[in-house]
């Protein structure tokens, strides 16, 4: 009897993970949290920092922090939610099953990022609408396309960064601290609230490694109507961050998998 070898379909792995991960392994993906992340958190965060900036007495500071925080709110649905994916697998006791399954790892991992990418796009878009409509942030005419590309690239890069943290969390007992640390460090090191040049040089270098830094810079440049050459350069930086994050996340996953399979256990992690 001729038996067709059972192969996992890459497309099916991708879509099954895209659809089921928000209900299983991703953190904070309940509908109420998602709606709160898209509509409430950006508004309250922008209002908070706008008032802090207005107290400083520098007129341009309000627009600066409003745009910075509009983009920074992407961290909730991308990094904070996504980095918990491996942690939750371990907690639910499904990690071992996942490691011995033949599912394509890239499809599995990237598929989990689909809904967070969509949530991130919605979050930044709504936040930028708040920025323009409520805070009267200047908006260069005809910059819709440029902004759209910047937002999509930022969402992709940030979800990649979340997966990278999820990869690091493979070796830890908890990922929520990691997610929280980068959630808040982003406000300090990404230029969301003040120019990076205000920071000591070593911290500027750390900030340059964060995709959020380049995402914020790209959105700011887009809003100001920067020339295409500048935009291309910034998009390239965001793209490099995205590719590096996904690549490193996969490498961490592979290493973890190899060590787990060679020892027959993940108990040490």
């Amino acid at each position: 009897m001729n038996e067709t070898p059972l192969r996992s379909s890459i497309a099916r792995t991708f879509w099954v993970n895209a659809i089921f991960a928000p209900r299983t392994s991703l953190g904070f993906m309940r509908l109420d949290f998602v709606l709160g992340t898209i509509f409430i958190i950006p508004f309250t965060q922008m209002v908070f920092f706008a008032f802090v900036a207005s107290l400083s007495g520098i007129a341009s500071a309000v627009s600066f922090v409003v745009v910075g925080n509009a983009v920074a709110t992407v961290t909730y649905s991308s990094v904070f939610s996504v980095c918990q994916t491996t942690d939750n697998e371990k907690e639910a006791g499904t990690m071992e099953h996942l490691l011995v399954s033949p599912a394509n790892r890239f499809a599995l991992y990237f598929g989990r990022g689909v809904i967070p990418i969509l949530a991130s796009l919605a979050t930044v878009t709504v936040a930028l609408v708040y920025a323009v409509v409520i805070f009267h942030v200047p908006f260069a005419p005809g910059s819709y396309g440029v902004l759209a590309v910047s937002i999509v690239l930022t969402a992709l890069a940030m979800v990649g960064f979340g997966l990278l943290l999820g990869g690091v969390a493979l070796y830890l007992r908890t990922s929520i601290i990691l997610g929280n640390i980068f959630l808040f460090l982003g406000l300090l090191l990404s230029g969301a609230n003040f120019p990076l040049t205000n920071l000591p040089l070593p911290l500027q270098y750390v900030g340059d490694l964060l995709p959020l830094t380049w995402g914020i810079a790209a959105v700011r440049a887009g809003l100001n109507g920067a020339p295409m050459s500048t935009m291309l350069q910034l998009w390239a930086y965001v793209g490099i961050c995205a590719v590096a994050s996904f690549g490193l996340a996969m490498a961490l996953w592979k290493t973890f998998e190899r060590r787990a399979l060679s020892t027959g256990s993940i108990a040490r992690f």
Partner: protein
Amino acid sequence: MVARSYSRGRSLLAVMRLAVLTFLADPQWLVPSLIAPVVFGLVSYELFAGSGPWFVLYAILGAGMMSMWGQTLYGSGWATGQDRHLGTLEPTLTAPTPYLYIVLGRVIWNTLAGLLGGAIVFVVVAITYGHPIPLANPLLFLLMFAFVITTLAAVGVVFAAAYVYTRYAGFVQNVGEFAFYIGTGCMFPVVLLPFWSNPVSLVLPPTWALDALRYLAIPGYQGFSWGFWGDMAGALGTTALYLGIAGTVFRRVERHVLEAGDLNDW
């Protein structure tokens, strides 16, 4: 008369001990009590940089208050959600010790941890500032700081009681965090907010206490028109009101749960 076979004081101490152990075992509390406030303190310090020596106090007070808020509300309120998640809420509510004492033990520890977090924020921002912090009366400042955390704890106790009735504790805390910071004016005077929002702010005890603290610490501070003593009276009044509400809600919670026999309805 049957003598009580348990001691409320001993229960209180046992809860405090457990709260300390949980705090040490679960390092995620470092985030709301330490990492987030230090970052907010440094961000606001950078935003205020060059705006005069007194603005460093805004950064310290605001971030310190955030640390205390994180510790009291996350620590005390979220504990109810954790009890529910771990399946220990029902046994805790049916134990002979009133639930209020369980929450009170957590609140006392979280108040102490919040003060520690506030002190760390103070040190980090002071080091970044690089000059002596302009405090006219450090002892009075410390006492007022402790008073602010008491007002925060009052809010935490009410939230902890209300969380028994809802599964949305996490949602309220995470999504409402910045709204609370805005409403209480933790980083800026509430008088900067639109006038229509002031009644909402004045419902919260920390709003009064923080305004009083700023009157005490910042010369020439322009807060509420009723001044320091008006703020103190408001803070004491609202805190007493919150504690009264908390006591009533806790009694009702316990009666409801014992009557219903389970917590599945909530």
